[in-house]
C-alpha cells in the first residue's frame, strides 16, 4: 500500500486528503474513515486484525482502533455471520469479512434466515445495520473455490442489498454508504481488480448513493451493462467500438439488488440496444433479471434482442483454463456487432 494512504490511516489525519489508491486500498481507506467517524463500527473476520487481512483490506485498523473494535475470529464462517447479527441488534455496526466468497456458503443460513429478516420479522423493533464483505469472482490464478461469483444467490433474497464496486472511487463511496445503511449489505469486492487500477480518491467521508447505477460513458448506439471486474473489459470494448464508429454507453450497475431499473431503461430508450456482461454463469444470473426488466419496461424502444455475455454454466475452471471462462473484450465486441447488425 502506498505510503501516503498508509500514513493517513495510521495517524488519522482529520482534514480530507486526496490519496492515489487501488480498489483494495480504497476499501481500507473507507473502513478507517468510518471507524474514525462512528464508534459503533467494528470489524471482524479471519486474519483481519494482526495480519491486516489476506488482501490487506483491513491493514492498520487494529493498530489505530484497538483489538476491541478489530477482532480476529476463530475459523467459523457461520459463527462470523451470526455473531454479526447479534452485534447489530445491539446497535453496533459490524463489518464482517468472509475471506473469500467461496466460503460464504456456510454463513448463508445466518445471512438469509436472520440478517435479511430481522427488521421484517420484528416489524422494525430490531434491525441489522451490518455489512458482510467478501473478495469475489475469479481471474487471479487462485486454487479452486477462490473464484466464486454467486451474487445472484443473494440478489434473490428479499431484505438484502448486494453491492459491487468496480473502481477505487466507487469502492470508497459505496462502502461508506453500505456501512451507514441501517440494513444488511453484502459488499462483494472483485479481487481481479483489487490492484489493477489507481485513482485519486478524496478521503472526505462522502458516500455514493446505493440503489443507483452509474453511467461511466455516454453513447448513442448501444447500452453496455456490467458490474465488477467485467467493467474493465466492457470499457475496453467500448473503446474498440468507438474506433469502429459505434458509440457505446457504459453503465455500471453497482447495486445489484435492489436494481435501479430506471437508469437502465432511460439508457435503452436512447440507444435501443443492450448487451449485458457478467462473469457469473449465465443460467439464473443477474443478467437475466436485467434483461427481463428491459423487455418489460423498454420493449417499445428496442431495435434488437437483449444479449448477454457471461461465464459458462460450469464451475469456474482452474488456473490453466481460467481465461476461457471469463468474458473477454472480443466476446463483448462480437456481441455488440451482432446486435448492431440487426
Amino acid at each position: 500500500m502506498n505510503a501516503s494512504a498508509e500514513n493517513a490511516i495510521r495517524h488519522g489525519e482529520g482534514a480530507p486528503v486526496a490519496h492515489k489508491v487501488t480498489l483494495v486500498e480504497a476499501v481500507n481507506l473507507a473502513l478507517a474513515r468510518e471507524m474514525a467517524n462512528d464508534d459503533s463500527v467494528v470489524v471482524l473476520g479471519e486474519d483481519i486484525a494482526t495480519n491486516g487481512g489476506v488482501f490487506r483490506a483491513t491493514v492498520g485498523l487494529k493498530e489505530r482502533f484497538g483489538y476491541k473494535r478489530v477482532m480476529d475470529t476463530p475459523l467459523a464462517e457461520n459463527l462470523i455471520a451470526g455473531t454479526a447479527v447479534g452485534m447489530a441488534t445491539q446497535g453496533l455496526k459490524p463489518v464482517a469479512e468472509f475471506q473469500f466468497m467461496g466460503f460464504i456458503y456456510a454463513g448463508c443460513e445466518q445471512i438469509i434466515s436472520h440478517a435479511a429478516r430481522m427488521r421484517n420479522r420484528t416489524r422494525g423493533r430490531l434491525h441489522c445495520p451490518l455489512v458482510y464483505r467478501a473478495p469475489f469472482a475469479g481471474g487471479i490464478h487462485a486454487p479452486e473455490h477462490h473464484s466464486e461469483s454467486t451474487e445472484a444467490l443473494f440478489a434473490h433474497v428479499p431484505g438484502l442489498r448486494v453491492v459491487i464496486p468496480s473502481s477505487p472511487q466507487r469502492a470508497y463511496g459505496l462502502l461508506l454508504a453500505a456501512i451507514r445503511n441501517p440494513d444488511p449489505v453484502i459488499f462483494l469486492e472483485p479481487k481481479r481488480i483489487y490492484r489493477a487500477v489507481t485513482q485519486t480518491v478524496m478521503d472526505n467521508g462522502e458516500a455514493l448513493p446505493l440503489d443507483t447505477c452509474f453511467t461511466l460513458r455516454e453513447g448513442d448506439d448501444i447500452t453496455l451493462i456490467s458490474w465488477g471486474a467485467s467493467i474493465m473489459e466492457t470499457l475496453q470494448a467500448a473503446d474498440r467500438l468507438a474506433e469502429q464508429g459505434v458509440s457505446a454507453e457504459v453503465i455500471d450497475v453497482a447495486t445489484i439488488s435492489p436494481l435501479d431499473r430506471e437508469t437502465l431503461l432511460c439508457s435503452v430508450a436512447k440507444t435501443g440496444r443492450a448487451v449485458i456482461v457478467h462473469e457469473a454463469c449465465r443460467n439464473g444470473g443477474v443478467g437475466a433479471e436485467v434483461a427481463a426488466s428491459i423487455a418489460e419496461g423498454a420493449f417499445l424502444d428496442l431495435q434488437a434482442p437483449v444479449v448477454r455475455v457471461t461465464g459458462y454454466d460450469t464451475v469456474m475452471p482452474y488456473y490453466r483454463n481460467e481465461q476461457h471462462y471469463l468474458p473477454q473484450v472480443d466476446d463483448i465486441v462480437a456481441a455488440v456487432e451482432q446486435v448492431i447488425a440487426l
Partner: protein
Amino acid sequence: MKDRYELTVDYVRYLNDAGEPLDELPALSADADRLLDAYRNMVLARTLDQKIIALQRTGKCGTYPSVLGHEVIGTAIGQCMERHDVFVPYYRDQATQLLRGVPMVNMLLYWGGDERGSAGWELCPQDLPISVPIATQCCHAVGIASAMRIRDEKRAVVVTLGDGATSKGDFLESVNLAGAWHLPVVFVVANNQWAISTPRGLQTGSETIAQKAVSGGLPGHIVDGNDYFAVSEAVEHALERAHGGKGATVIEAVTYRLGDHTTADDATRYRSADELRSAWDKDGIKRLQSYLHRAGHWDADKEKELQAHCRDKVDKAVHVYLEKAPEPPVAMVDYLFETLPAALAGQRERLARKVEGVRS
C-alpha cells in the same frame, strides 16, 4: 501443558419427585414470595399453553410447540435475569418470555402467524424473537455478548436451546467463541430427551451434554430441570459469573418433553405411553406445589383461585388476539428496509390496491 485433563460434571437436584428436600436447600428457598411468584408463573405458562393448543385445533392459530415440561426451567431463567440482560430464546421459552414482559397477546400473534407478535416488546426491547432455525440463536447470543464486552457493560446474555441443537455447529462454534473471547453468556440447554422423534441417545455419543462445554474451555453443569431450586441456583451462579466478568457457562437442565414436538407432531408414533406416564410423575410444577403445600405457603383454595385467575387472564388475551384485524398487505413490503427502495415501489403499489377477495 497438563499431562492429564480431568473433567467433572456435577448433577444437582434438591427435591425428590415428591417435592421433599434431599439436602440442605439453597438460600433462595427462604424467599417465600419468590417461590410463590415462580409457581404462579409456571401455572400461567401451562394455562396459556393449553389454550394455544386448543386454538390451533380449532383453526385459530398456526403450528405451535407446547411448553409442557419446560415451565420450571423457563421460570427460573426469567426470575434470575436482570431487566437489562438480554434473553435469546429458541421456541419453547414461553415461561421465560412471560416473566421478561412479552405480552401474551404478542405470543398469540406470533404463533397465529402475525409478525407484529415480535414487535413492541416494551419491557424487553432488546430480547431476540423466537428462533426457528435450530441453534442459530447461539451465534446471535455471542454476538450480543461481544457487544456488551466491547462496551464494558455489566450485562449478560442467556441463550436457550434444546438437546438436538447441541449437535449443530452453531452451538459448538458459539461455545468456542464464548471461551476464546471470555464472553458474558449463559447457555441453558433444556435437555428434554427428544428432538422431534430422535431420542437423546441417538443425538450424541457424549455421555452428557454439559461436558461439551469443555470444548470451549467453559464450565459445564447438569441440573434436574424439574427442580426449581437446582435450576435457579445454577442460573443465578452462572449469571453472577457473567456479570462479574468471569466468562461463560453451560448448564444442562434435564427434563422431559411432556407434549408433542409441535401441534403437527404425534409423539405416540415414536414413544411409549409408559415412558410418558413416568415422566409425568417427575413433573416440576407438581413438585414445587407439593413443597409449597408442605411449607405452608399453599392450599387448595389458593390453587382454585390461581387457576381461575390464569384462565381469566389468558381468555382476555385470546379475546384481544382474535379481535385484532390482520395487517394490510403492504405490511409485507414496509418492513424490509428502513426506507422503501425505488425498485419495490411498483410492487407496493400493487399490494396497496389489493382488497381482500379481489385479486389485482
